């Protein structure tokens, strides 16, 4: 196998598996902070139980996230040595900052949250929940900043031996590209958190247990799910698209399956990209909508893939499908939560609508797919670049690691993560079935 392909497969697998857990921690942490604060300020016994319940699930997520996160930190060195040697001066820095600013915060205060309830005063216990949340969100920030720099490099200079160095840390940390991407990622994780909360609440209501807590969870999940679903689309999703349109037009064309440059380009709702024939099979179009979304003008010219050399194309099918899966699911989330909120306002009918509760319960895994699909658009769509416009992906690999070695370790990761995944699901489902009231 081509070495670069083996390296990419390993990275894709390990990062996608790892990311399942940060979705859970970043998505649930704000709920835990909210319920913990409520329990502390309002002496709300029920909120304390809910907070303790989600903290248990958070802790399982956190442990799996740490365990699968360690290889990520070092994989740049093991499999992407040329990339690391060249760009480590920039990308190493947010990663180092993630360690010292975010991980310490999260892990130390999670220790308090889990072990220290009796050892510390209640105020510090409540503060710990907030700091754990802050830690997980900061951690996401530094990761997105690193990725955003690879998508749209800023604030760097080229030094001896072609090494890329940090010239302006603030420009890297505060790049508008990074900030909108960060907001989009975090809001999307919150949608996942909201659907978990609502889904578990729906499960309790459907199984006729813990009715009061079930209602509380469904209500919280629906309201936050509705707000954050809307925010994934506007303004965060919209601003992300605008950045892609401006800085990565080839990715935009691949996302939309647009092969030929067109004035008043239509938006493909569905369709099958045929890369060899350079066309979309069986499409359903909204006329001129793509031009409007990209440039705010129904007549604008949108460049298609054929305007660029084929070697600059990302894998078109994967980018296209991942994007459409993400957008399709996002639309479903907004629609379902909107209906749910309406039923909530209309005489709390939502708690009696078994079909909606079923829907909420079954939808639980889908935000995970939407999150992963979004990252797939971002990362696969960036190809063939590892740093957009500066370094090709196949130039970034470790030249001294054979594909056989990488395939061996990939198999090892597959086995280990399979085991971990089974145990994770088992433990999480067991916590849910044990219930909030113990």
């Amino acid at each position, binding site marked *: 196998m081509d070495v670069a392909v083996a390296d990419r497969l390993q990275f894709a697998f390990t990062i996608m598996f790892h990311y399942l857990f940060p979705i859970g921690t970043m998505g649930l942490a704000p709920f835990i902070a909210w319920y913990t604060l409520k329990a502390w300020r309002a002496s709300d016994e029920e909120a304390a139980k809910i907070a303790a319940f989600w903290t248990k699930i958070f802790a*399982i997520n956190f*442990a799996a996230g*740490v*365990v*699968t*996160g*360690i*290889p990520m*930190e*070092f994989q*740049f*060195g*093991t*499999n*992407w*040595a040329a990339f*690391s*040697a*060249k*760009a*480590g*001066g920039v990308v*190493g*820095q947010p*990663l*180092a*900052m993630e*360690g*010292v*600013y975010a*991980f*310490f*915060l999260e*892990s130390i*205060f*999670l*220790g*308090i949250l*889990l*072990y*220290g309830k*009796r*050892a*510390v005063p209640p105020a510090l216990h409540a503060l710990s929940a907030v700091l754990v949340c802050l830690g997980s969100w900061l951690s996401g920030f530094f990761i997105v900043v690193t990725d955003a720099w690879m998508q749209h490099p800023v604030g760097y*200079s080229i030094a001896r031996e072609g090494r890329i*160095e*940090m*010239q302006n*840390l603030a420009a890297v940390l505060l790049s508008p590209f990074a900030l909108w991407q960060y907001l989009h990622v975090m809001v999307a994780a919150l949608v996942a958190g909201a659907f978990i909360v609502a889904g578990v609440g729906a499960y309790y209501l459907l199984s006729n247990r813990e009715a009061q807590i079930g209602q509380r969870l469904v209500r919280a999940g629906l309201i936050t799910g509705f707000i954050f679903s809307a925010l994934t689309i506007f303004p965060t999703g919209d601003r992300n698209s605008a950045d892609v349109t401006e800085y990565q037009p080839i990715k935009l064309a691949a996302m939309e399956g647009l092969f030929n440059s067109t004035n008043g380009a239509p938006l493909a709702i569905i369709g099958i990209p045929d890369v060899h024939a350079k066309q979309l099979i069986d499409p359903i179009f909204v006329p001129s909508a793509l031009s409007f979304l990209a440039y705010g003008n129904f007549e604008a010219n949108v460049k298609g893939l054929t305007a660029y050399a084929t070697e600059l194309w990302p894998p078109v099918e994967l980018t296209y499908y991942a994007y459409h899966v993400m957008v399709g699911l996002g639309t479903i989330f907004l629609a379902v939560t909107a209906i749910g909120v309406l039923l909530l306002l209309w005489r709390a009918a939502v708690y009696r609508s078994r079909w909606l509760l079923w829907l909420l319960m079954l939808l639980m895994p889908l935000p995970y797919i939407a999150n992963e699909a979004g990252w797939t658009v971002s990362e696969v769509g960036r190809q063939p670049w590892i740093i957009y416009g500066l370094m090709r992906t196949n130039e970034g690999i*470790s030249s*001294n*690691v054979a594909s056989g*070695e990488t395939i*061996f*370790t990939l198999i*090892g990761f597959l086995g*280990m993560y399979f085991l*971990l995944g089974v*145990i994770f699901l088992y433990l999480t489902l*067991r916590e849910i079935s044990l219930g909030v009231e113990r």
Partner: protein
Amino acid sequence: MSIAAFIILAAMIAVYVILDGFDLGVAAITPFIARSESERAASMHAIGPFWNGNEVWLIAAGGALFAFFPKAYASAFSGFYLPFIIVLWMLMFRGIALELRGHFPTRIWHDFWDFCFTVSSTLLILLFGVALGNLLHGVPLDTNGYFLGTFGVLLNPYALGVGILAVLTIALEGAAFIMLRIDGAPAVRAAKLAIPLWWLVLIAYVAVTIATFSMHFSERLAQTAAYGAILPGMLIVLSLAALIAGYFAFIRKAAWFAFLSVCAFLGFLLVAAAATLYPYLLPSFPSGNGISIFDASPSPAALLTALVAVIAGLCITIIYAGTVFPRFFEKGNRLIKP
């Protein structure tokens, strides 16, 4: 500026070794000091609130190495690909064992994870020790600073010796920590075990120290001359003093004093190791292609930014960790009853 970065990085690694040392050490000696299931549970519980935060020091040090010395980060981790991935897997196993043991009240489940906990932790100490031994010894590198040898090269007698010293010393630290945190029979057994362990550490320490000096003797002599005789002599005296202080502390069952002495001993050993390595991050043997701190770091201005960002973060961390962790050692919270 490169020197400052080297010092910060070495300090972060030293803090990691000392802090995660007690987690790993507790795991390594658990089969010897805990007989019943509840005693083994207590030994995991003793490190429960800490191990994760301690492991972050390794992740932070990895990040700092990446940011301060990208070339060394790239060369070291890709060069020692398989051993390094095995370290990662062991780290993962240790974490999984710690997290999962308590979730299921069955004898078989507990036994299995206790076994994984001890084996992965002990292997980790050994691998870290062997890695350090190889760094001190030097490894064959090509002109780009990439590793040229095989597994067999890495398992040389000197590196294995350092590995054994590491296992013994960390186990001793673990014994002291058990005395500090656990009440009853395990603490008594740990104190008893510490004495023979101490003698083994002393023997291994003397052997490894002599081997380190006699290896590449002329280079070592030149290095000693460059530092002046004061620093190496001082380190030997200080580390021996800390070790001997530990002996008396173990005899008198003074848990805190024993723990701090072993930590100080470890600290001095690591300072000595860093001083031996300097100015290399990855020395080569036969010499010539080693990666030095000046070669591997970005320009001073870029490095300064990275240093400031990391040091500021560390200061904040030390402040809150220093506020929070002592709580676990206050009266009533310190001792765990099995």
